[in-house]
């Protein structure tokens, strides 16, 4: 849970503080709740995983035990701790905008399930 009060520490201007308020209001910010076998089934579908009923039950149990640990963590007072966006305290890793070599087409297509006209060929998809 990103508490925007802490974000004020690095939101310098009035506009930036307003911006944080908007964002915190607009997006769901985590929180814990128990998952059901149906939730597992939904996530599995989104991940293209095929699970048996038995596996769904087992996995729901496993994940819920994990979530319990997080619930415990949430009891901590984190008021004075800056939210973590990344596990290592490193920022602004960039490259210069300089084009370099790409792979030869044959290498690009080496893993393609099917190839024609130097393209990856896939089952026909409807436009989205």
């Amino acid at each position, binding site marked *: 849970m*990103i508490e925007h009060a802490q974000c004020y520490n*690095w*939101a*310098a*201007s009035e*506009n*930036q503080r*307003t*911006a*944080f308020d*908007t*964002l915190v209001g*607009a*997006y769901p*910010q985590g929180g814990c709740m128990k998952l059901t076998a149906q939730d597992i089934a*939904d*996530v599995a579908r*989104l991940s*293209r995983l095929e699970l048996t009923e038995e596996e769904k039950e087992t996995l729901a149990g496993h994940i819920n035990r994990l979530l319990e640990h997080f619930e415990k963590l949430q009891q901590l007072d984190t008021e004075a701790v800056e939210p973590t*966006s*990344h*596990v*290592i305290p*490193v*920022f*602004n*890793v*960039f*490259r*210069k*905008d*300089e*084009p*370099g*070599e*790409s*792979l030869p*087409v044959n290498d*690009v*297509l080496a*893993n393609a399930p*099917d190839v*024609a*006209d*130097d*393209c*990856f*060929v*896939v*089952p*026909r*998809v*409807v*436009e*989205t």
Partner: protein
Amino acid sequence: MAEYEPIIGMEVHVELQTRSKMFCSCEVAFGGEPNTRCCPVCLGLPGSLPVINEKAVEYMARAALALNCTILPQCIFHRKNYYYPDLPKNYQISQYDYPLGVNGWVEILAGGRSKKIAIRRVHMEEDTGKLLHVSGNRSYVDYNRSGVPLMEIVTQNPPPEGLDQIESAEEAREYLQRLRQILLYLGVSDVKMEEGSMRCEPNVSVRPKGQSEFGVKTEIKNLNSFRAVYLGVDYEIKRQIRVLEQGGKVVQETRRWDDERGVTVPMRSKEFEQEYRYFPDPDLVPLRFTEEWIEKLRSELPELPLAKLKRFMSDYGLAQADAEVLIDSPDLAEFYDACAVGYKDPKAVANWITTELLRLLNATGKKLNETKLTPTHLCGLLELVDGGTINRNTAKAVFEEMFTTGKTAPEIVRQKGLEQVSDEAAIESVVNRVLDANPNEVKRYRAGEIKLLSWFVGQVMRETKGKANPATVNKLLREKLES
């Protein structure tokens, strides 16, 4: 019958004109042989590591500021997870709850009732590959576009206090055009709708006038020109009103614009909001921007198109229509500006540029910077016309020559002996010759066929190779024909 009002939201994607992709060094270009600009990063091969293109971040920050957004001191990249063959990693690197810029606006003139269209967010992401649909049951995929820096700009409905929303197809088109102009002025994208470097997906809903809740919205895809955006949105507004008036219900869905038939057709129903399982991308560390960096970018913003439009109208006295033509291209605007400050009649300059110069540019297919014309040269030409050295018709021919050769107007006039002849005696002898040679026409004129005057003028001009002062020719012809 109830009156309905439309509300339009715009989601716009813009490809940046960087030299390399967002997270790898593959080249960014349009077209080319398929799958020739790909590497392990943009193909999503295991073990590859994306590294952020600094220039792309700078471009998007510049754009966010020009769109009056607040840039947050920190932003992070998320993975947006979904399965589709144009997305080799099965996730798109995008931004979620901490985008680059928020709470901005774009001004549109909306037929004189200036509006500030609210922008919810500007965020950074990467483009997907391109699906080439082929006949049969197979699709071809080209990943050259995969990983090209992409900026998403989304409007906000309802707008916050003091800002506005888009409420007609005309406003939707203008919003998009203003956005395009701004990005063009910033030099961050070539914003070509027909090549897909600017793509727009409007969503449309209608509600009975006075109702505060929004109606059910539909999203329109496949709009590949400003005209299509106007027509598609306009069609969709009318279609929804028709459905409601007939007692039906608008279904939340994505519809495809069919340009040939001029209609939108359903593509898929959107009953369930897609679940993208966003999470912070562990491969990319957060970005932090100092206040100094943001302010430096802000101070480097150029004069933006609408500010230029207003200045051209107030300082140079141009009509809005002429000013619009000039500001639509930053090159043309800059050229005009340079001419107009150095010349006493800025309207006349505008006229030359919007007619003669644009005509030549269109005819030759050249860009302004590919020609040899300079603002000083154009002003030099206009001064020759003002001083009576050449007449307007000769000036057009001289202009054409300047356009191709880069010579100055006085040079061309001198070399070709094009100085206007204003000497009455010289012109009079030609006039006499013409009248003597055409007794029939003289008779007809005197019998009342006065429109023959311009024919006589033409004859005299031909004799003088177009150099005679037209006013003098007219005056002398009248005097002699009517005496």
